[in-house]
């Protein structure tokens, strides 16, 4: 049911963990629904120099988190804000229909972390 790419990211997720002095932290989802994604970003001169995630959820939730971190790593904040769930799905070579919400959560988690970064910078 999952693409090889999804299974590869599930088996070897990239950028798992936390950032102790993160510049922004975003958390979306809830345990009741079975998905929580937490993203940590480190920002220097408007560039995301590090990004880490922790996810409670299904295989698609873990794979989309992993892929989303890869897609924004080293990007400018402006570029990262343009991340779409569609881009995450494409990079994973597709997701089953009932799992598309995971890619939306991944997009939202990145954006929540950036939003937190702006809040802190204010």
């Amino acid at each position: 049911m999952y693409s090889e790419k999804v299974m590869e990211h599930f088996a070897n997720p990239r950028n798992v963990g936390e950032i102790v002095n993160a510049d922004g932290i975003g958390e979306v989802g809830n345990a009741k629904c079975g998905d929580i994604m937490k993203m940590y970003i480190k920002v220097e001169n408007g560039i995301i120099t590090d990004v880490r995630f922790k996810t409670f959820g299904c295989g698609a939730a873990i794979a989309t988190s992993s892929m989303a971190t890869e897609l924004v790593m080293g990007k400018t904040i402006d570029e990262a804000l343009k991340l779409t769930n569609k881009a995450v799905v494409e990079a994973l070579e597709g997701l089953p229909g009932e799992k598309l919400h995971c890619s939306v959560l991944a997009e939202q988690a990145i954006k929540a972390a950036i939003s937190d970064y702006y809040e802190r910078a204010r």
Partner: protein
Amino acid sequence: MNQRIVYADNAATTSVSGNVLKAMMPYFTEHYGNPSNKLYGQGKYASAAVENARIKTSAALGCTPEEIFFTSGGTEADNWAIRGVMSAFLQENKKHIITSVFEHHAVLNTCAELEKKGFEVTYVPVDEEGIIKLDELKKAFRDSTALCTVMFVNNEIGTVQPIKQIGEICREKGVIFHTDAVQAVGNLPIDVNVFNIDLLSLSGHKIHGPKGVGALYVRKGIVLPSLITGGAQESGKRAGTENVPGIVGLGTAIEDAASGIPERTARLEKMRDRLISELLKIPETRLNGSASHRICGNVNISFGSIEGEGIILAMDLKGIAVSSGSACTSSSLDPSHVLLAIGLPHEVAHGSLRITIGDETTNEDIDYIIETVPQVVGKLRNMSPVWKN
């Protein structure tokens, strides 16, 4: 290095045994005649084989062959039993069904469908161990109750229901008693007369028979409307040319399963209990269902702070096939109705793992599962934002 492959989802389905396959084969190629045409050899052979399978099936349940009707499986048998009884009692204006909250969807969705058509259903709750509450069941009876349907063994948590007592209560109240015994046949000794069962559903593929064949036992005297109209097959109750190889396979499978119950139970219980006690050593882990009223092959455990689909995928990467009651293994957002029914919060229900061992499971397989589960759980917990280590 070859990875060990362990199939531990025997409550979902089982392999066709060598003995069953051997019994079936001639009915594909040699005795392929239509059982309705008994005037020549092939037809005679096929017809005799179907009747022989009926005898074997009835022997496993303690009923007569005339009380066995072959179907396409457990779901069809459940549908027929419930819809059939309710339609038969329509004239008497008996429109009430009693069932439990944690039935298989074959029963629950059939009841839900009937509710839409104006029938009334009482869903009796279960306790935290996953046993139906008999006092609540007794209170559910009405003058309009036509049918009580309660599963013999729960398919997710393996709990054995007090079928004999339910049968007695139903007999006393004059209500027809149906049980979905798909998970019980071959695991527990069954006698429909001892248990006061009026209708019983069973399936072939859970007991090393083929998929696509099952049966409904209908106590003599209960007249169900025909499920499928057409020819005279199955006493005209379920028309259509018989699935002869499938029926032969079911007959052989049920005979084999019923003959070795005590040995099988002893062997599997030992492995099951070792699995449970070892897996419960993992922190923040709980056994779902009863420790004592439990089918011999079932283990169902929840692991805090992780989600079931991830567990299944990670186990599959290690060559182990298991299942879960997590929402992500279905198309709904809710986790298993069974785990919610025994009082698990959503987040705990999401992290459940069902391991169902069977005849082909070895002690080495159990060792490998015991070795693998903590690795998988550890890896997923390290990734989980809600896990506090």
